[in-house]
Every structure is written in structure tokens, then in C-alpha cells.
């Protein structure tokens, strides 16, 4: 049986020799990723949202519970969790791909 940790992705943003990215730049461009400043390095585990395929950065300092889909048995991002709470049908990424593949095969 695989552990959650065995399916993690990894991200590194290295600004040790760079002016880096400011929080102001992130806010001005409506970005929600990590703002890694001058001389800093950001290294983290990530999960991939099983509903949309987006990255879920597993920040150790997060205090809210992380969203989990019991049907997929996998992490999902906050956006997909909101959509789920609003009542959207369960349609994970692997199902989307499987349906698209089926459609392609049927088209011949």
C-alpha cells in the first residue's frame, strides 16, 4: 500500500543569486504561488489535485485543514474543494482523460 508521501511532487525555486520576486509583484499580477525573495530558496513537497491537475503546495505552516477527496483518496486543491461544496458532480482528472480517450478511439 502506497503512503501519501510516496506520491508527492517536489518544487524548488532558487533565488540565492537573484533579486527574487517581491510580494508586491505577486499581488499586482494576482498570483498565489510562493513569493521567493532575494537570496532565498523555496523547496517544498507538492501534491497534484486529483480533480483539476493543479499543484497543491504542502506548506508545513498551513493551519487550515487540507482538502481531501475520499472518493479519489487523494488531495484536491482549495478551488476544487469549493466547487465540490457547491454541489458539482465528482469528476476526477483521470475520468476526464479516460472519457476523452474513449471519444478519440470511437472517432477512429
Amino acid at each position, binding site marked *: 500500500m502506497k503512503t501519501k508521501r*510516496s506520491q508527492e511532487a517536489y*518544487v524548488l525555486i532558487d*533565488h540565492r*543569486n537573484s*533579486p527574487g520576486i517581491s510580494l508586491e509583484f505577486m499581488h499586482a499580477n494576482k498570483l498565489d504561488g510562493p513569493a521567493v525573495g532575494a537570496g532565498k530558496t523555496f523547496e517544498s513537497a507538492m501534491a497534484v489535485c486529483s480533480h*483539476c491537475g*493543479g499543484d497543491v503546495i504542502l506548506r508545513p505552516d498551513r493551519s487550515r485543514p487540507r482538502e481531501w477527496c475520499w472518493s479519489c483518496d487523494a488531495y484536491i486543491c482549495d478551488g476544487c474543494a469549493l466547487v465540490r461544496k457547491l454541489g458539482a458532480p465528482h469528476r*476526477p482528472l483521470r475520468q476526464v482523460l479516460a472519457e476523452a480517450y474513449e471519444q*478519440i478511439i470511437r472517432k477512429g
Partner: protein
Amino acid sequence: MSAFSFTVGTFTTGAGVADTTGFGASSYMALQGGTTTQMSFIEEVYLGGQATASAPVIMLLAHDTTVGATPTALASPNSNGLLHPSGGVLTAPAVGFITAGTQPQRAATVTVAKKNFTFNAFGGLVRANYSNTIDRFGILGNTQPLGEVSLSAFTGTTSAALGGHLIYETM
């Protein structure tokens, strides 16, 4: 199943474009499926900054809703090939390109994921590895909406030179 690496030595991002806008020639990396039924998954994304002054770049890995038509063959030092010499050779591998007769356009679909790699191209680098994950970024077929992915600059980017690679596995 074999892993391939699509590598571009240097490309210049330009100031970035909004979704559903044609990319500038040689300002992006795009990977298009080799056949109508081929499936590939992105294993790793690496971008290294080569700018000579501070240049924040907003690089998006996304599917394209207009796929590149008549892609121009890669020229050295760019490459797209098997990572391991004994990997399985495909008759129609995925096509890596940085310019095409008709340039690709990034999807604007809000229900399809994009991956954002924002960093400073003056001395910065970003690397993301998805090898262990199940729901990796996939390429299915070779037509829109899932048949092509691109790594391109979004609006707000300061034009900069970058080098990078996409490691992917074709099923």
C-alpha cells in the same frame, strides 16, 4: 513507456501574452502529441534564468486550445529525445517545437489546470518534479483541447532569456 527530454538551450520569453493569444515565434516551448491517440505525461519542468538584469517572469504550463500548425523542426542546441539510450524508440514521438507556421494559443478554460512558475530570470531557477504523482499533466492525442501543452510567458512578464527542459513519459 519511455522517458523523453525536450530541452531548449535559450529562448526569449517576450513580455508575455494573455490566454487565447498567439505566442511570439521562439518565445515558448510546446509539446504536441505524436499521434491522435498517444498519451504522454509531464514528469519534470525546469527553467533556468539567463537574464542580465532583474526580470520577473510568469511562466505557465498549460494546454493549448489552438495547437501549433506546421511546427518548425528543432535546431541545435535544442533537442527532443529519449533520456536513456536503451529506451523504447517510438515511430511517432511527441513533437517539441518553439515556433510554428501557426503559433499555438494557451487555453482560457478555467476548469483545466495550469501550472504557474514565477521566478526571477536574473540568476533564478525553478524545478518541479512530478514523477511520483498519479495525476500528472497529460497530453492526449494531438489536437485541442488536450493534445498539446506549452510553457509560455503570461502578461506581466519582463522579457528575459531562459533555458529549460520538459521531461515527459509517453505511454
